[in-house]
């Protein structure tokens, strides 16, 4: 009989404005693979960060290997034997496999590094896991799957017996997934407990023993995997009525404004076809990493396209860079406002004016100050941006107001197509509703709106038509009135068959 090695009871964790974890219970036994499931934002990652010492819990008890722990920190968690394999691999690409495995706890003889003994130990751990790798090889030259295995080997070399894997298969090919599963079986046989977080429900059957389901920061249920069907799991994951109110306006669907045909751009944008019409908002649903952001970037000319046509008002437009897109009348309010949306060292005025300098300047390229001030004031008023004046650095605004600047700078100009990528991420409810009203205004003006969001209730509440993507492809399309969260989630997890059964 396997023993319980991790026991979390009544874990609570709040961030300003959000209760991320609300009295969550979680157990893990030795020699088992536990799938931790839930929608985006259900609190899975937060819970695992509490377990690995990244976050401190507000309430609750935490027991690892039968011992109670107060505040954990990452170093202590590592000593206790908890290791986390992150979604983005944390490796020093220029160092060798052995150097990475012993990073921060290098073996020394006197003051000299004892490379021989580190390499020997690395080799023995790799052998134990039946991983065929040379410890001297430089990590950057390895494929992602092998790098991941180095991470796992590294975790084992610190004597980890609780391994947390966050979406480990998202970057792997079918062959590599088989390899990973084989290693997971080895780990199980050695008595490790494994927490497995994945959105790919289909692959669970190959490895998972039990599942725990979370929703909205709460523990829902856990059970043996063999006693439950995938449909039941989805029902548990969704299981709620939409509580928020979404302002929806009825509009006559007009003529076709915009069409994308056969768009290809890398692995995450494959054969994308869709159209946008006047008087409708088209929602793009899917899980994180489904390729929606990549699609918007390819359309907008940020990333290079491998093929495909962009057709605006019946005419094909050539878009090689964002400037072409803007001139054609297509604009994009990007997802990551700090990285892509704002020049934080510059003022609100500079930020709002930046994409609109074409009409804010005279033909000699001189800025028309009056016109600029007027445009900025109008934007600030229309979007209710809370700021003493427009000369303030964009960095000093709150998140919601920053987001309004990112959106507002595009609404100051006349466009035909407006693409919103996660426009409500990380902003409060009131600001969200204002963003919805803005989208509705555009819809009433006959502007085509493409609305990417990972929050399903929001997509269902605002969009007239919902296109679902998974793994770089469009997997389905639903009218808002037919859409249910179950249907969307099932389309959003329609991965191509990768696993050789």
């Amino acid at each position, binding site marked *: 009989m396997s023993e319980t090695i991790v026991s979390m009871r009544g874990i609570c964790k709040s961030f300003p404005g959000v209760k991320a974890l609300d009295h969550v219970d979680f157990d893990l036994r030795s020699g088992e693979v536990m799938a931790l499931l839930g929608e985006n934002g259900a609190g899975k990652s937060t819970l695992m960060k509490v377990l690995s010492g990244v976050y401190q819990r507000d309430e609750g008890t935490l027991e690892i290997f039968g011992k109670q722990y107060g505040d954990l920190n990452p170093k202590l968690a590592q000593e206790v034997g908890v290791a986390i394999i992150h979604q983005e691999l944390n490796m020093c690409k220029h160092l060798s496999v052995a150097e990475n495995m012993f990073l921060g706890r290098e073996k020394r003889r006197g003051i000299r590094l004892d490379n021989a003994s580190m390499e020997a130990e690395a080799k023995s751990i790799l052998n134990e896991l039946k991983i065929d790798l040379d410890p001297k090889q430089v990590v950057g030259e390895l494929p992602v799957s092998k790098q991941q295995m180095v991470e796992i080997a590294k975790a084992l070399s610190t004597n980890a017996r609780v391994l947390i894997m966050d979406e480990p298969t998202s970057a792997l090919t079918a062959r590599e997934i088989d390899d990973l599963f084989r290693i997971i079986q080895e780990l199980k046989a050695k008595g490790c407990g494994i927490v497995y977080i994945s959105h790919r429900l289909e692959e669970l059957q190959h490895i998972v023993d039990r599942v725990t389901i979370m929703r909205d920061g709460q523990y829902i249920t856990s059970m043996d995997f063999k006693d439950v069907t995938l449909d039941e799991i989805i029902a548990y994951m969704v299981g709620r009525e939409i509580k928020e109110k979404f302002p929806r306006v009825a509009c006559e669907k007009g003529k076709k404004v915009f069409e994308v045909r056969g768009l290809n751009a890398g692995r995450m944008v494959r054969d994308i076809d869709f159209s946008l019409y006047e008087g409708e908002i088209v929602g793009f649903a899917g899980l994180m990493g489904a390729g929606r952001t990549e699609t918007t970037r390819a359309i*907008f000319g*940020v990333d290079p396209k491998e093929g495909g046509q962009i057709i605006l008002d019946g005419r094909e437009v050539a878009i090689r*860079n*964002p*400037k072409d*897109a*803007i*001139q054609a009348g297509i604009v*994009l309010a*990007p997802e990551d406002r700090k*990285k*892509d*949306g*704002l*020049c*934080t*060292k*510059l*003022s609100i005025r*500079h930020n709002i*004016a*930046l*994409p609109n*300098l*074409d009409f804010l*300047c005279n033909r*000699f*390229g*001189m*800025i028309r100050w009056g016109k600029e001030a007027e445009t900025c*004031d109008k934007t*600030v*008023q229309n979007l209710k941006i809370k700021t*003493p*004046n*427009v*000369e303030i*650095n964009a960095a*000093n605004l709150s998140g919601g107001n920053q987001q309004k600047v990112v959106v507002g*700078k595009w609404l100051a100009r006349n466009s035909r197509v407006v693409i919103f990528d996660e426009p409500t991420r990380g902003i409060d409810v009131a600001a969200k509703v204002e963003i919805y009203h803005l989208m509705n205004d555009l819809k009433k003006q006959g502007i085509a709106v493409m609305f990417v969001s990972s929050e399903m209730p929001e997509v269902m509440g605002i969009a007239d038509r919902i296109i679902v993507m998974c793994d770089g492809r469009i997997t389905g399309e639903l009218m808002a009135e037919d859409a249910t969260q179950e249907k969307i989630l099932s389309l959003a997890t329609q991965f191509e068959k990768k696993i050789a059964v």
Partner: protein
Amino acid sequence: MNTKPNPIKRILNTRGMGGALTAFAGLIVIYIAFGIINPTVFSGQNIMNLLRSMSKYLLIGIGQSYILITGNIDLSIGSVAGMSAMISATLMTMGVHPIAAILITLACCLVIGVLNGLLVGKWQLPPFIATLGTMFVARGVAYIVNGNRNTDAIASGIGKEAADTFGNFFYYGSTLGIYNTFWIAIALFVVFFFLLSGTRTGRHIYAIGSNVDAAKLSGVSVLATTTKAYLVSAFCSCVVGLILCGQAGMGNMEAGNMYEMYGVAAGVIGGVSPLGGTGILLGTLAGAAVWQTLENGLNMIGAQVGIQRLVIGIIVVVAVFLDVVVRNGAHKKKPAKTGAAKTN
């Protein structure tokens, strides 16, 4: 809700004005301090000289500030100035008309500017390395044009009269009691000040320096903007080269050596951030003046060259240090302020 601040307040609130005003305040303190030690510092002739020798640093500083604001650096400035001096002098010793010589020189310098723009803006080379390369290339050209030696006096080619006109225009002559060099620098300062603060190109320069990804997504061409900034820098270097040529009446292969660093110093003392996105040319003006006043003042009180270098070096580090301290202080204070407001 948008109350318009009064005009004076608005000017004071302009981004980067703080750094510029600090530098001006420092300038006044330094100037008066030297004047008290040696009153000759206050003499009319010394002020004239000061303004003239400051002009070179101002022009260099303008060029380098443009580049710093885009978040890059231009190490080729001094070499382009040297190349400018050598090409123009060589042409004039060959009897080419000064105006033609100036135009040809300008074209050659702008080629280096375009090259820098392409290397950094298009092929994404680290600007430090790219302009290190063009620095050596430009210096190499400066050596080659006259066969690895300094030129003869330009009067030998275009005649004494034309050579005097050239020298007077760029260096020795004066208008309204102030040397022409200063008028040239101030005229270009006004033009480039306006270009940076009042035009689309200027806005784009700030934008790519602040956040290149956001700028790209707002339709800014990084290549065009970077190239324009390097063209401004090359243009200013070219003018400085002509001034050096006019001053010497000949071409010196080593002309303009180290000037790129003087440009960085002028900008940084004046509050231009070497990290990009912030700073105004008014600050560069103050920075160039501080630099030149220090050099001049230390000279007047009889300090050795070594001491001069040492003091100037310390001033640059202190200026940046203060900037960093003030900036971090502002960040740390902010939450405390709002916290206090809440408890009240």
